[in-house]
Every structure is written in C-alpha cells, then in structure tokens.
C-alpha cells in the first residue's frame, strides 16, 4: 500500500487561541531573565468581577514577582510589573542568579492594593559564576585554585567576562 495521507492531513495546523483554562507558567531563560505566560478562563474572570465589583476590562493587571532565598524559600523581596489586559506572556528581568522565583498574576485595586488571581510554579535562576560554597574536604589552596580555574576560564570566557567575575 502506498501511503499518501495528504487528504487526511489537510486543514490541520490551526492551534487554539485559548484553552478555556486557568494557568500561569513561569520558565527560567538564563541567570537574569524569566518568561511567563498565562490564560484566565471566563469562569475566573466572572468570579473576579463579582468579587471586586468591577469589569474585567477595567482592571489594572499586574505581575508580582517574588524572589526567594535558594535554600529555605524565605521571601527576600518582590516587585510589580503592570501588564496590559491584552498581554498573555511577559519577559521579566528578575536580575539575580541562583534565586528561586514565583510570579503571581493579579490586579491592582484602588485601596486594597494587589489582589492575586493565580500563582505560578517556582523556578530557580541558574548561577552565572563559580559557587561561593566550598566543601572543606574538597578544597584547593588559593594559589592552586587560581592556577586551575584561570586556564578553564581563558578558554570558556572572554577576558572581559573573566575580569567581571573576579577570575582574572
């Protein structure tokens, strides 16, 4: 049998604009940047409208970006980013490597401040330099370590980066 599936596969390839679900997903891009995307279902929009007595279309939508300590997930700080109602994704300059982050999608209410609609998963930004944590049983004397890491860095980084990271 010669398999020609052409006629079966035509008219495919249109992906849904909406899934009708609630989700807010956070992805790390590199040590400094995160990416998030979301969808708010009609049901949730209706719930929110009745909750705060306002039209969805009039809301001030915002992302609240929480930064946590890597080890104990204690909140270190947070900041807000206003996003247009038409947006469904955002790149966030989180700024600090080796931290845990979570994002809440919410709205700014005139007197009550930020109201969370939903929370994202938690992600960790990668390190962009050597770890400051030293295991004493696996420690090189300083001069040996410089000798060792200098050659690796020379081949892996530009000299500018080496200076920036305190290796040169």
């Amino acid at each position, binding site marked *: 049998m010669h398999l020609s599936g052409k006629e079966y596969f035509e008219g495919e390839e249109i992906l849904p604009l909406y899934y009708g679900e609630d989700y807010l997903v956070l*992805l790390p891009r590199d040590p400094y940047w995160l*990416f998030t995307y979301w969808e708010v279902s009609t049901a949730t929009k209706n719930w929110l409208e009745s909750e705060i007595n306002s039209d969805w279309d009039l809301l001030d939508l915002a992302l609240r970006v929480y930064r946590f300590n890597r080890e104990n997930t204690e909140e270190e700080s947070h900041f807000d980013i206003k996003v247009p109602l038409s947006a469904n994704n955002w790149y966030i300059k989180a700024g600090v490597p080796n931290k845990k982050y979570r994002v809440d999608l919410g709205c700014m209410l005139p007197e009550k401040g930020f109201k969370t609609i939903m929370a994202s*998963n938690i992600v960790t930004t990668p390190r962009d330099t050597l770890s400051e944590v030293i295991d004493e049983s696996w420690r*090189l004397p300083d001069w040996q370590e410089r000798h060792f890491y200098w*050659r690796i860095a020379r081949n892996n980084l530009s000299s500018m980066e080496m200076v920036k990271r305190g290796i040169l």
Partner: protein
Amino acid sequence: MAKGYLAFILHSHLPYVRHPEHEQSLEEKWFFEAITECYIPLLRVFQGLNRDNIDYSITVSLSPTLMAMMADPFLQERYAAYLARLQQLAHKEEERIASDPVFSPLAGLYRERLDFASYFFNEKYQRQLLEAFKDLQNSGKVELITSAATHGYLPLLGVQKEALYAQIAAGWEYYNMIFGQAPKGIWLPECGYDPKLEDIIKELGFYYFITATHGVLYASPRPKYGVYSPILTPAGLAAFGRDPETSHQVWSSKEGYPGDYNYREFYRDIGYDLDLDYIGEFLHPMGMRSNTGFKYYRITGPTDHKEPYNIQWAADKAFEHAANFMFNREKQAEYYGEIMDRPPLVVAPYDSELFGHWWFEGPMWIDNLCRLISKNKRIEMITPGKYLDRGYPLQVSEPNPSSWGDKGYHEVWLNGKNDWLYRHLHRAAEKMIGLATNFPRAENTLKDALNQAARELLLAQSSDWPFIITSGTMDLYAVSRIKSHLTRFLKLEKQIWEDNIDLPWLRHLEASDNLFPHLDYRLFQNFKETIPVEKDKLTNIT
C-alpha cells in the same frame, strides 16, 4: 600510566523526518546525507580501528529518533534509491572529467565512497545500520548511550514532571529494545540540564550524563577539580562537564581545525555550479538547486576564488591536526595533573554530524587521532562508564542549570521567535497526563489512539523545532511540524474523551508518525497513579 584521560563523545541526532505523503522531501535528505557523509564514514573508521587492533575508546550517543529512522523500512527504501542515484551521478562525473588530471581523482574519490556506502548499507548490513552499531558495542571499544525520546529540550518541558519522565523513559525503553541492554549514560539534549531531571534519570538506572562546561564548573559546592573530574550529584549520578579547550580547537571559526585552507570547501557543490541540463535530474524535482555532496574545491582562503581540492594535502593536514590535538591534550594533562590527585579527564563531546558533512576530513582526523594516541600512550582514551569503573572518589556537588547552546542557558530554545510554542506544549502535556491517568487500562482502538496521542506529543516536543525557528533557516517547516503534531494530538484527545475515534484517520496517523511502535502511553500517567510497565514490553525485539 597515562598522564591524562580523553573521553571523546560523538552525539548523533536528527529529528524524526519521514514524509511518505511527498514524493521527495528536502528534509529527509538531511538524514540521507548524514548516513552517506557521517555515519557510514565514522562506522568505517571504527571498523578499521578494530580490524587493526587499535586500542581506543569512544562514546557514541544515538538519539532515539535517529535510531527509529535507521530502523524504518520506508526510509531504508528511500535511502537505497537516493544512494543509487548518487552512484549514477558519480559515474557520470567520472566520465565528464575523465581527461582532467586535477579533477578526475576527485570524481574517483566520491565514486569509491559511494560504492563503499552502498556495499556497507545494502550488502554488509542489509539496510540495518543499527546492526553496525551493535557490532561496535560488542567490540567493547565503543560505549553506546542514548538521549531523550525525541530530543526534547528538558529544562523547558519540566513544568510537568510526567512529561520529563515520558521523554526520558520512552528513549530508555527504545534503546533497550534495540540494543538488548540498558544504556549507562544519557546525553541530555543540547546538554540541557535542570536538577529536576535527576530523580528520573537515577530511577531509570543511568549512571551518568554530560553537561556544558559551566554545568559542572558552576556546580555547588565549587568542584575542586573543575571539569577535569566528574562530580557526583546529590541523587548519586556522575556529571561530566565539557572541556572548553577541545571544543574551541574544533569549533572556533578562526582557529578551529575545520577551517584550514587545505580542507574541502563545503559551499562549492556541483549542484550549484553545473548546468541544470546536466545536473537537473539529480536535484529536487521542482528544479531547486541543492547540494549533491560532490565538492571539488578546497577552502583556499578568505576569498571567493577557490583552488581545486588536493586529496594528499588534506590528508596531511588531518594527520597534523590529530597530532596537534594529542600534543595539546598532553600539555593540558601536565598542567592540571600537577594539582590533581588523579590523571585529569578531558571530556570532548561533539555532534557526529560535524564529522564528514561540514568537516569532510573529520572522520579521517578521528582515525589518525585514535591511532596516534594508542601508539604513544601518554594519553588514554576512555569512556565515562569505564572512567567510573576506575573508582576515583567523586566530590558531591549539584550541577548548574545550563546548556551548550549560544549564551549557555535556555535562550536558544526560549526567545521572541519561539516562546509561543511552550503554552501549547505544556497544555498538551497536561492533557496527555489527564488521558493516561483516566484510562489506565485501555484496550484495542482506545489504546491505539492513546499511544498515538503520546507519539504526536513527543514529536511536537523535539528541541529541533524551536532551534530551527531561532536559526531562521527552514523555520516554516519547523513551525508546520509543531503545529501538525499538536493539532493531531488535540484532535485525538477530543475524540478519545468523546469516545468517537476516527479509525481510518488514526490508522493513517499511525502509518505516518510511526516511531516507537511499542510506546506505552501510560508513561505519561500521573506520578501518584503509576502502574509499572509490564516486563514483556522491555524485551529485545530483534
């Protein structure tokens, strides 16, 4: 005792490309070219080393999609026809330039290579290239490992742990079925590492994986020996970090070996240079110019004027570069060896497809390198598995999330051009987990539909699609592949829930997107609901 170890690793991967619905497909040609120019020449090198009893060790990673293409009778048939056409062209070329003393040896070179490929593929291995890899594995000189099922970029698929598990476990199962044994190591697609992967990799019984340089270098606590000894992750896996010097020597656009002026120029191909009247029948039926693999010039210099290729000069260079590479490893071993309590290990991973295709002389360079090292013995070639058998104590440290892509993290696979696709990939994974959890014991058509849904999702997850979109070449093809797999998945999902499966359509999907025939959709089951896969699914199919 050798001063240092060299773990030379060749990662072989192509996305699953198979288009029975088209008479000819440009994209299938990626696979055919790789067989002719990379895989067969590399296999030929290894078989020659075995024949001459050379002491060498190399690790070869085969992605499950590449294995599936090698095992596919339809693609085997198409490759045989493709190769026969090229052999015809070789004879025509020999006639055309028979009286030209400069070019006729080159036509002869290509004719010999194609004749050998045909002998190797059609006669020696009866079209089953995977048998050649099995032979290699049995020789004990080559350690075969594998990768995630469709080479999904794992750090960005990890929103659902089940999706990671399915990618890794489906690849692991397929490797087991083909090679009849479990792989010791896993090649993380694009060296994309995230700590979430560890439990899964550990659970499946892998011993090690390979990371980009800063995957190990920036691990925490700080690794005492940088990338020159593997580290042990908290889950108990060995992580081998890529050595930056060996990658620089091969990849650097300025100083890298493949750019030597005596080596073959990739961009002068008779598919572009000769009259369409002559060459047209060997090109795409639509008349588009394309590469034939017949290239008669050397790089010559930073100029458009190209001099003819000289076989002997190129061979001399390939020898010189192999000797230079070995010399540099010795110096490197001396440098680090001064400080270390064990011989330093240099991990040098490359894409197999570099060798022979872009770097025509690459397989010859590897051949020279193995012979030189085995003779002078100051460096010892080793595989990660054999290194671990030596029993050096390893420092416990957690690797850093990273990749070997541009800028070292996830941006190649997550940027303004391709970020839209993660919403769909993650939604689809969520739906697949829902299906697998709700239908734990499906039979017959329902089971077929669920398995096909799993196949479509896996195919959509290939790292190749976002990569191609980023690089901007062939991006329409990549977008259409993602969209077609995802829309097929969504349609199947709907039909499954509605208990309304379009059987003829399902059978066409199965015939078209046919990889991993034994795939079990329950790999996607919610972790809490997991039922172990029956053991008979894991037996050798050969």
